[in-house]
């Protein structure tokens, strides 16, 4: 055995605190801990699970043979959730009370417990509270945890089947009993209480429970209660003790499935910070933890009241990560079904449709006004138009249109994820890859602003043959109509604004102001300068020509055939705001 073994004569005299240890694995670690306590004057009674092989028990006994204040109690099989654990505790506690008369407080621990503070601090703490029983004990209504959806029913139903190995039968039998209205009667009208298995009780309380006249009655009853180790002492203590402090002195944390968290070497600082006296469960190979906490150097800390709450945040964060995940992240651990994403993307972003057709250098203007990254058409057919024309963007995303189109959803989700903290804006239009129209419309992070029909402006300015223009206009109009029907769908969750071209250029400043305010709400300053509107002289006639050729442009709104949309003056298309 490692650790300095002190000759029996150097053992401290037995004091007022004794430990009962329930062990079933990693017996060498249990031996170290037992030795630590025993050498410091705390008698230890060890219970080893009956299912442990004989030779390991003999090894444990011979390892600890030099210590006179260690006892081994009668062995029971301790299957989870069964009476065996309570029987083992009772037997060991009886040995403790009988063999060590000096003991005033009995601390129930397990083989995977580790003292975090010097035992004399614990003794001093208990000496100040000589009549107090530390045991978490709450009524079934107040209990915050349930396993298998059972609380009060733990006490009123029968559980002949194992929850772990015969779950199907277990569940059926519970259902059956519910249906026929079966109910066990609770003896003497005691009020069932639940709580952590790990307690520290006074001799008076413990002996009253163990030697009480109704013990046989209670044992018979609790033998058939489900998980009695969390309710036997927790309930009976309320009958006999007037001084219950309803909390456990042992730090233990449970994950979202109700399984205990294990502490590893890297939890050293965390465990120190908790100021708790004992922690479980400790990973048996956590050499650093055992070496640190079982040495006598662990003293010298202020060591106030145990404060497990200090480390709660870490655990609640872990539970949240496990249960909710990081919104907008798609990766090997997290590939949510549609509608289960808890946020389709990681951060808000803005999609502009038609703006760069209507304004000159819209991207430059928007970047300046909002201080965001403004891309060109991210979904353009030939390449991804990243801001600044970069070939590789944040996160090492390639500008290859083929790579993007191979998995558009991943592309957008990756871009938004990789640029968290910096809002992305990009241009979109009916000429682009339309695969994500639904994805974005259903994404509450998306701000989608559309000037419908604006795609006609580049056509109007192009040098194509009119037949080709007409054909292209018909194609784009159909695509945009489809897109608009998606955006107008009642299920859409994005912030969507749609203007037709005519109404937009009638008054471009108000929509721009709204959009910009939404992007950077903190600045909230008036736009003093709008981007330059492109020259639309003759656009009405262009639309009329399309009509004459048999194509019906329906998305632009009303443009008079003859007049220019705005009165032409020297400052054409540059509407400074009049305040």
């Amino acid at each position, binding site marked *: 055995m490692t650790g300095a073994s002190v000759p029996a004569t150097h053992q401290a005299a037995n004091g007022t605190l004794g430990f009962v240890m329930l062990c079933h694995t990693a017996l060498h670690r249990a031996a170290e801990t037992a030795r630590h306590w025993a050498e410091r004057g705390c008698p230890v009674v060890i219970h080893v699970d009956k299912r442990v092989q004989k030779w390991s028990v003999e090894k444990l006994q011979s390892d600890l043979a030099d210590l006179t204040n260690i006892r081994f109690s009668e062995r029971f099989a301790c299957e989870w959730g069964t009476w065996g654990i309570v029987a083992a505790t009772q037997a060991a506690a009886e040995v403790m009370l009988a063999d060590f008369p000096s003991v005033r407080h009995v601390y129930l621990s397990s083989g995977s417990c580790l003292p975090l503070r010097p035992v004399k601090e614990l003794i001093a703490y208990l000496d100040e509270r000589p009549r107090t029983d530390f045991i978490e004990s709450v009524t079934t209504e107040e209990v915050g945890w349930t396993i298998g959806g059972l609380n009060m029913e733990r006490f009123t139903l029968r559980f002949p089947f194992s929850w772990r190995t015969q779950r199907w039968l277990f569940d059926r039998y519970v259902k059956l009993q519910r249906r026929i209205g079966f109910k066990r009667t609770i003896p003497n009208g005691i009020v069932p209480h639940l709580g952590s298995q790990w307690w520290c009780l006074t001799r008076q309380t413990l002996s009253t429970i163990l030697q009480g006249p109704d013990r046989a009655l209670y044992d018979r009853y609790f033998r058939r209660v489900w998980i009695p180790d969390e309710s036997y002492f927790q309930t009976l203590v309320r009958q006999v003790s007037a001084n219950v402090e309803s909390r456990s002195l042992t730090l233990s944390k449970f994950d979202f499935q109700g399984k205990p968290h294990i502490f590893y070497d*890297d939890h050293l600082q965390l465990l120190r910070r908790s100021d708790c006296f004992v922690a479980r469960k400790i990973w048996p190979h956590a050499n650093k933890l055992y070496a640190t906490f079982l040495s006598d150097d662990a003293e010298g800390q202020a060591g106030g009241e145990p404060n497990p709450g200090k480390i709660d945040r870490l655990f609640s964060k872990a539970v949240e990560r496990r249960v909710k995940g990081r919104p907008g992240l798609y990766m090997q651990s997290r590939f949510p079904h549609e509608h289960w994403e808890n946020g389709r993307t990681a951060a808000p972003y803005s999609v502009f449709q038609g703006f760069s057709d209507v304004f000159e250098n819209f991207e430059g203007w928007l970047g300046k006004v909002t201080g965001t990254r403004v891309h060109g058409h991210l979904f353009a057919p030939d390449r991804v138009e990243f801001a600044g024309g970069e070939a590789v963007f944040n996160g090492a995303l390639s500008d290859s249109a083929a*790579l993007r189109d191979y998995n558009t959803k991943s592309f957008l989700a990756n871009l938004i*994820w990789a640029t968290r903290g910096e809002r992305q804006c990009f241009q979109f239009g009916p000429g682009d890859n339309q695969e994500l129209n639904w994805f974005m419309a259903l994404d509450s992070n998306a701000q989608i602003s559309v000037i419908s029909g604006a795609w006609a402006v580049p056509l109007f300015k192009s040098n194509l043959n009119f037949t080709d223009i007409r054909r292209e206009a018909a194609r784009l109009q159909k695509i945009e109509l489809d897109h608009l029907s998606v955006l107008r769908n009642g299920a859409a969750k994005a912030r969507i604004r749609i203007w037709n071209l005519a109404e937009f250029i009638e008054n471009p400043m108000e929509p721009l102001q709204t959009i910009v305010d939404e992007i950077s709400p903190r600045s909230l300053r008036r736009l003093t300068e709008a981007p330059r509107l492109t020259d639309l002289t003759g656009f009405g006639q262009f639309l009329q020509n399309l009509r004459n050729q048999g194509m019906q442009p329906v998305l632009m709104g009303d443009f008079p055939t003859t007049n220019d949309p705005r009165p032409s003056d020297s400052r054409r298309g540059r509407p400074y705001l009049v305040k």
Partner: protein
Amino acid sequence: MAIAPEHLITAYRLRWKRRRLLARAFARRRDLTSRIDRTAVIRPGDILGFSTVRNEAIRLPWFLDHHRGLGVSHFLMVDNGSDDGTTEYLAGQKDVSLWVTRASYKASRFGMDWLTWLQMRHGHGHWCLTVDADELLIYPYWDSRDLRALTHWLDSQNRPMFGAMMLDLYPKGPVADHPYAAGDDPLASLHWFDPAGYGIRIQQPMGNLWIQGGPRARLFFGAEPRRAPTLNKVPLVKWHWRYAYVNSTHSLLPPALNRIYATDGSEAPSGLLLHTKFLHTVVDRARVEQTRREHFSNSAQYDRYYDALTENPDLWCRQSRRLTTWRALESLGLMSRGGWV
């Protein structure tokens, strides 16, 4: 819960597929000649490593040390016709059992038939780590908790498998300009990676992930992204003799083992396989592989890929991220602790 008939048919088909794979592996056991068999020292609960190698003498010292340090107790390795001292090196390692074969790598499903046979015989009931010599497994807390801790926790969560995506690592500058010697830390020069840009989808009928991306997709498969290398892997499995890997360690049967991902928005635990392919040796190796034709199909796209590799490419770009701690990798969303605290 009612199960649609087509699901039953799929399940039945996959069951037969698995049986065929097992039968294949059984038939191919004759390919293997035991060079040194130390499997008698394997004890219940040991974590086992499985690997097929060919001419990896330069990588093996670090590879073995890394996984030893993580708690792999015994390595069961197949040497497929090495001539660079790999065989002798492995035979001299006390925790390696070695089989040799000169049979075709491709005809044995890229070595999987051989490993399936070894797993069937020796892997049952053990946590088995199946990795290539150019892969180093890491996972959340790997620097303070070994694989015993991880697998013990996975057991407690009733998760018999653990996913780890391949993360291609590369140096800054042309790959051949960073000489590497056996026993060196490969991460001394290979410490750049693509922080994002991994495309992900689910492949039916097995329900495995299909992740592609990283520097190879970015540089070599921009024209034909479908052919970009697959990065998802399930290298760590609590083995049962009836299990079988299907396509490298990218997917396996029965299909439930491919569900390394959560679909309800939560995060399952996962790690990464640091891929040290891009040591300086990759250039010569690409030349050899191109003529040997034992990898992948003979597509023109792969020829271009191998051509590009022989030209000593630089995979680094301004957006490349430097490899630091596992916590950084986790916060980038490349792996997840998935509730392990």
